[in-house]
């Protein structure tokens, strides 16, 4: 047996033994996800057990170095672990902005001390992070951000406002873009800093979404003290880090995992004709067309990972993945609503699991806005890949 085959059989056995049965059922939405953090209430003992067991092996972040709480796995091993988890339909033990956004940026730009301080807590789900990028006047034009950090020697005093800060009210720490210099171009003078959301002067105000949930907030900073040791990378040069983090955020948003094929949902709802086909032929056609795109896209994510593994630079390709993946997911939910007809538009009540289909559908509308809009992704492809003039 090769090393990888051994790894596969050991992993399979370990997962078989350690993944609780209830953690092998599909998640019914964001509420079933394990976010971790100081304020998090576990939905069940199994959820906590599963997180702790995976974290003890570093498998919440399989490819991070072991000294920072990771599993130290090679990309090949990580691929096997992911496949084995998929095989038993294991839930992700931990969903976290720390893992898919901040972690990669710290690994690349952080100091050894910063990595030691923050990464293991992310890996174990002890500290939950939020992202302080957008401001009322800096959305797509993110680099025009104005939250001000005044130099006070060993620390800054931060004043300003962020908006659309996902889960700011539940997060423990924030990675935040602040302006430390406004004398140059807008891309210059941005710094990437980290601070505790319990710092004096931080307050949040939830905003309700069209889906009825309020997963994001306005976030206010009123004379917040931020130590200079919490600067990542160089002062005034945070834009590079911000962009690098965005490529990870975008790739993450684009990856919807392997959702249940629409044809299976449609068969459950509508049954089939004698010939085994879905009874509504136009819907069947739309579903087939969608599933062709979806399968092709899943293979594109696979190819992107393999190319990255072979040393290719993802760079602006993540914008393509983000654009395509999110538009696809929006279309998928449109088709789920169509498949369910009027049942899919119920907003409350037990039959619809409190309007789950409709609320999920509306939530997907944000996919092509959060992390940079579809239009912005197309701008990036034009400029960075197709080399078209601005």
């Amino acid at each position: 047996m090769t090393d990888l085959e051994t790894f596969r059989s050991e992993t399979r056995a370990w997962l078989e033994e350690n993944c609780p049965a209830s953690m092998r059922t599909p998640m019914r939405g964001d509420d079933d996800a394990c976010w971790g953090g100081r304020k998090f209430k576990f939905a069940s003992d199994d959820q906590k057990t599963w997180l702790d067991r995976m974290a003890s092996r570093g498998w919440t972040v399989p490819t991070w170095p072991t000294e920072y709480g990771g599993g130290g796995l090679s990309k090949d091993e990580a691929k096997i672990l992911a496949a084995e988890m998929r095989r038993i339909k294991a839930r992700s033990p931990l969903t976290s902005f720390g893992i898919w956004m901040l972690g990669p940026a710290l690994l690349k730009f952080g100091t050894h001390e910063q990595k030691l301080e923050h990464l293991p807590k992310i890996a174990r789900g002890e500290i939950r992070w939020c992202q302080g990028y957008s401001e009322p006047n800096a959305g797509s034009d993110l680099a025009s951000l104005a939250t001000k950090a005044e130099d006070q020697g060993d620390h800054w005093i931060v004043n300003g406002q962020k908006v659309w800060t996902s889960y700011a009210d539940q997060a423990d720490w924030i990675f935040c873009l602040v302006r430390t210099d406004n004398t140059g171009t807008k891309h210059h003078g941005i710094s990437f800093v980290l601070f505790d959301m319990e710092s004096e002067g931080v307050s949040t105000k939830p905003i309700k979404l069209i889906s009825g949930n309020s997963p994001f907030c306005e976030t206010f900073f009123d004379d917040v003290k931020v130590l200079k040791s919490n600067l990542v990378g160089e002062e005034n040069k945070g834009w590079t880090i911000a962009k690098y983090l965005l490529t990870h955020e975008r790739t993450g948003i684009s990856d919807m995992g392997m959702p249940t094929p629409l044809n299976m949902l449609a068969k459950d709802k509508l049954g089939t004709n004698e010939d085994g086909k879905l009874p509504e032929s136009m819907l069947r056609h739309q579903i087939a067309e969608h599933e062709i795109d979806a399968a092709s896209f899943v293979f594109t994510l696979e190819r992107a990972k393999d190319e990255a593994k072979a040393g290719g630079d993802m760079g602006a390709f993540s914008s393509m993945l983000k654009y395509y993946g999110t538009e696809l997911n929006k279309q998928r939910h449109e088709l789920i609503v169509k498949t369910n007809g009027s049942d899919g538009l119920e907003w409350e009540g037990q039959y619809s699991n409190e309007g789950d289909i409709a609320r999920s559908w509306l939530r997907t509308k944000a996919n092509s806005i959060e992390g940079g809009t579809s239009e912005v992704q197309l701008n990036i492809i034009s400029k960075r890949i197709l080399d078209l003039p601005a």
Partner: protein
Amino acid sequence: MALILNEEQQLLKESADGFFAEKAPISQLRELRDSRSETGFSEALWNEMAEMGFAGLLVDEDNGGTDFGVMGAGIVAEAMGRTLSASPYLASGVISASVIKAAASDAQKANLLPAIASGEKIIALAIDENAHHRPESTALKATADGDGYVLSGMKTFVCDGHVADAYLVLARTSGAPGDTSGLSVFLVEKGAGGLIVDRTVMTDSRNWAKLTFEGVRVGADALVGPLDGAFDAIEPALDRARIIVAAELLGIAQECLDRTVEYLRERKQFGTVIGSFQGLQHRASHLFSEIEVTRSAVLKAMQAADTGGDVRWFASLAKAKACKTAELATNEAIQMHGGIGMTDEFDIGFFIKRARILQTFLGDFNYHADRFAACSSY
């Protein structure tokens, strides 16, 4: 298996790209068309392709091939899509080689495959009988007669039909049109008594033909593969061909994008290059995205075909996706070139003409989307 080209495949790609760009650029197809070439392809080119090993990519080494598999054959087809190089590659090296490999006896293989790989013999598959691809609707009759068969009926849309030295003919030996059982393949030589070959000039200026069989007599040894069992026997071969056609469509789409983007960078209107207009940038970027996603589907299908197992789902996925993307790419290319895109003197129009033929050939988007759904039982 990683979803990227390995070193050997990368080298093949580079040599194919270079070869067709140099030896058979679009100007060659234009020249063949304008001179109303008898053969519709350059024999010198075809000989060189054979020397390069391109005619035998799907043929095993024992039979004189280079055995690069569907992956290799797709890589070369993609290169040909970029230059629209005309040759009997698809008919003989891809489709017939696959059918023979999948269905023929060892003796037939030893007889036919080396001749295909060396380019000596061009073999064409005669399958469709009406305007829509549907192998099971085959009506052309092969009736047992003495120790052989007599073939009567007609075939259309036969790729490289008028230059072929022999034909693999899908015929009905029992049952009725619509049945998947009762079909058989026969090898019919050019010049057989009662065989009438009419070249049909199609939009792509390539080689297509209608064949009429007026009581064409063949021997018992002309049967290729199981009697009455051809549908199942050749389906995997057709799927390999579909995947390779998808690769050619991918090459067409990519070339259309590349040429269009170059034009966007050069052409000026309103005092600036048109590539600075966001309306065009977004269309080009969307097309880029569709092509990348299509590339993954085609690559995955090529790998699946070489790995073995049931490839119906993969083939229909790749062909359907490539049809859709090539349609988008060829339409967008003309639109974004403006008036010049409509002129015959300009090359971009050649791509749409070839693309629609390949989209239709061996099943169009609707055929494959339907089959894709059927493969997943819905």
